[in-house]
């Protein structure tokens, strides 16, 4: 029990410590931004501080928050769909090479066709609603989840499944406690990727399909050539992404990867 508490405390400490590292990374980013700003001027890359100011004034306006919420909802809806379908098909393909053989070429096609070719089709199906955005996200974010799930299942340690079978785990129990647990290791980083893609594609699809939300606001700011405002929207979307990612995906991943810490505590090598 104390061990578990200590474990969790270590994890929290690690989380905070990586928060520091994250701040360092962001500081780096801001430094580059500032340098770019000084090189190219306001019109290409506005002053980071001015942008943050614009971001703040957007953030305190309830209207903007509504737009952000709309886009975040769409992104999350698309992400949920993509994560679910990618994981399900990927897991099936991981178990059944026949499905894998069938899915691979389709994956290649889905991957390789530019979004511009899909967008009319999704508009036909769903009109210019949030569903179009969700469908675009589905197409963009599913492959990475699929591939991770399939690889995770295909490279599982089969010996553990056999062991579980001895102890009366049925197919479902083995899947749940053994195979899925093993697939989780590659799956979580892929989910983080898919989530980031979802937010990005949500904004892009809102722009392309003229569907409001942050994408719409960004398009408007761009049409007005209001670069700080446009960037502020981007910053806002990224902040929403960060909140969701570090509030949802990373903690779950940390739970899953806790045991690795036992082997290599605090990231110390050897």
């Amino acid at each position, binding site marked *: 029990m104390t061990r578990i508490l200590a474990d969790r405390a270590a994890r929290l400490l690690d989380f905070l410590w990586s928060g520091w590292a994250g701040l360092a990374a962001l500081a780096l980013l801001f430094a580059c931004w500032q340098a770019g700003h000084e090189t190219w001027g306001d019109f290409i890359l506005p002053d980071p501080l001015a942008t943050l100011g614009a971001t703040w004034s957007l953030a305190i306006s309830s209207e903007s928050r509504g737009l952000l919420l709309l886009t975040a909802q769409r992104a999350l809806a698309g992400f949920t769909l993509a994560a679910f379908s990618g994981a399900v098909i990927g897991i099936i393909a991981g178990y059944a090479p026949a499905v894998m053989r069938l899915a691979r070429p389709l994956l290649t096609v889905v991957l390789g066709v530019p979004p511009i070719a899909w967008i009319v089709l999704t508009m036909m199906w769903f009109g210019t609603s949030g569903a179009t955005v969700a469908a675009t996200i589905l197409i963009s974010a599913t492959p990475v989840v699929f591939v991770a799930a399939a690889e995770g299942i295909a490279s599982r340690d089969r010996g553990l499944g*056999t*062991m*579980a*079978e001895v*102890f*009366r785990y049925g197919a479902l129990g083995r899947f749940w*406690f053994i195979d899925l647990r093993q697939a989780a290791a590659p799956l979580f980083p892929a989910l983080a990727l898919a989530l980031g893609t979802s937010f990005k594609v949500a904004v892009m699809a809102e722009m392309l399909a003229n569907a409001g939300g942050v994408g719409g606001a960004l398009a408007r700011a761009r049409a007005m050539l209001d670069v700080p405002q446009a960037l502020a929207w981007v910053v806002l979307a990224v902040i929403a992404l960060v909140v969701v990612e570090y509030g949802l995906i990373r903690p779950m991943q940390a739970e899953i990867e806790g045991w690795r810490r036992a*082997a290599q505590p605090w990231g110390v090598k050897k």
Partner: protein
Amino acid sequence: MSAALELHRIGHAYFGQSVLNSIDLQIAPGEVVALVGPSGSGKSTLAHIAAGLVEPREGRVTPGYARHAMIFQEPRLLPWATAAQNIGFALRRAKLPRRLRPARVAEAARLAELEPQDLAKYPVELSGGMRQRVAIARALAVRPDFIFFDEPFTALDVALKRRMQDLVIAAAEEAQFAALFITHDLVEALRIAHRIAVLDLRGRGIAGLRILPGDPGARDEATTFALRQRFLTEDPLFRHIHDVDERRRP
């Protein structure tokens, strides 16, 4: 009384290469049968088939027990679970109320001579022998009436090995479980088993069976050593167990 396990004309092949052929074996309830045979002769494969983990190409397995367990040749621990969780893993499907599980885990760990502070360790943090003991505890935790042992005590020191053997002997005495006990250690087999089955060099059937005198619990060290010497030097059945060059004969 029907057999705890009955193997009928079992045959198996990997990719066309025959590994096992017409294996017949019966194990009575409460009986411990030691299975010996050269490395690669198909003992593990047979155990997997007998436990229903591998579908045999030929033949029939008729289990007569209620609940089995297996100690695999490798520990097969879940790397993401602590020793205690690994033992507890076997209990999830054992129809044991959840609140009784910790006590059962602790009991099994005690039987396997695991120390409490080691129960919180992950497999990567355990020594080879500790891992094997976790696997043993996991099997004991479900209180099976049949156990498949696949070279279970190889990583244990003399004292632990003896302790574990005594456990098996005691269990057999009280007929707590029957067992198929794969081992390379003839002395071990002679200590714990009612019968010894010798697998053919190439898995072509059970080459022979030897019924051991008396109850396992009743044999003392001198008896087992004498038996060992006799089997190895006089009994032709054990010739290729004893001598590698015998195996090269066509």
